[in-house]
């Protein structure tokens, strides 16, 4: 067999294979067509039977109505679940906001407490008290009073917004500040932003246990501070206890330092 004959055979077998694949595909199409025709016929028969037989028609109708009712019920369930989920979502969002606010408030309280107990230097403690009341509460005019042990009167120790000398000594039990300290209760007056008065808006007695240490009096607020918030009240309570402890600790530390220095000086004198 020549080479040309071989190529012809090869091409003929390729053509034959292609023809077989075509024939197979055509056969499949014919089968599919027959199947669809049968299906169409069945449906037409069923529809025609149903149309002719009222019972069959009724059965079909009931089936469809049941199916519709089932779907309607599923839809209702889905809507109810969606409603519940939306409600849960709203309540989670509200809770999240509450927790955020509590978190922020706790941060303020933590920072205030941390700063108050970060030093044993009296002037530093007073500076921190003033800083807390300005930055965290929003006061513009304030005075921190301490009880003078000899006179028993409340004396200004630190002030902001006015000179310290502009604030007067007060006897315990006298006036708003003296009464607040004597009774150990925080006194409030209606806050007005930017307004200043000789009477304090708030007076926070400083106490360690039953022992009165002094007071913090707020006389004016920053112009952007409209009213006291729940956090401010928490801060007032915290200051009443923690600022008092910090001030007392600093005072005692100062006294002990002075006594130590005196004793060291005395010992040095005796040993020389």
């Amino acid at each position, binding site marked *: 067999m020549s080479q040309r004959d071989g190529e012809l055979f090869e091409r003929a077998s390729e053509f034959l294979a292609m023809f077989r694949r075509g024939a197979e595909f055509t056969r499949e199409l014919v089968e599919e067509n027959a199947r669809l025709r049968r299906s169409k016929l069945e449906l037409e028969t069923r529809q025609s039977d149903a149309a002719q037989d009222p019972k069959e028609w009724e059965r079909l109708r009931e089936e469809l109505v049941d199916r519709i009712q089932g779907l309607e019920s599923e839809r209702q369930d889905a809507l109810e679940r969606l409603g519940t989920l939306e409600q849960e979502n709203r309540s989670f969002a509200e809770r999240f906001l509450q927790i955020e606010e509590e978190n922020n408030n706790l941060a303020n309280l933590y*920072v205030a407490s*941390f700063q108050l107990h970060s030093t044993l230097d009296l002037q530093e403690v007073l500076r921190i008290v003033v800083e807390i009341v300005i930055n965290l509460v929003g006061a513009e005019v304030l005075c921190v009073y301490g009880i003078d042990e000899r006179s028993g009167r409340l004396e200004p120790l630190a002030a902001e917004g006015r000179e310290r000398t502009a604030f007067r000594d007060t006897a315990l039990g006298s006036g708003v500040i003296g009464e607040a300290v004597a009774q150990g209760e925080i006194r409030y007056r209606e806050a007005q932003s930017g307004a200043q008065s000789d009477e304090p808006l708030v007076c926070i007695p400083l106490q360690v246990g039953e022992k009165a240490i002094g007071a913090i009096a707020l006389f004016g607020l920053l112009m952007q501070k409209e009213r006291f918030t729940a956090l401010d009240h928490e801060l007032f309570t915290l200051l009443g206890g923690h600022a008092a402890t910090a001030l007392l600790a600093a005072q005692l530390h100062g006294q002990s330092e002075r006594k130590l220095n005196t004793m060291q000086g005395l010992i040095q004198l005796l040993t020389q």
Partner: protein
Amino acid sequence: MQRHRILIVEDSPTMRQLLVFALKRIPSVEIVEARDGMDGLRKVTSDHFDLAMVDINMPVMDGLKLIHLIRDEESLATMPIVVITTEGGEEDRARALALGADEYLTKPVQAGSVLAVVKGLLKI
């Protein structure tokens, strides 16, 4: 995750601690503190920062002067600046914004509003 460096220029340790507390809730944030305007200027010009929070009333150099000097520096011209101050007057706000501050918050500030402003400016 991209790191964001924030400079807090504030003379009050209480406020600094509160701001650090609030900003640490953003995981990608790195915070550097400065105690006054001069300290802030030194830090902002010697290192890269993505945002600065500046108080107005500070010793050595006040916040307005600092903002002015920052905006004069070409490389810092677009760095966002947030002012946090006790000065609540409209004139103070207008002056700070005119000098180049991007946001103006008045004390007492809520941690939530600080976070929202910082996230908005840093686009995170």
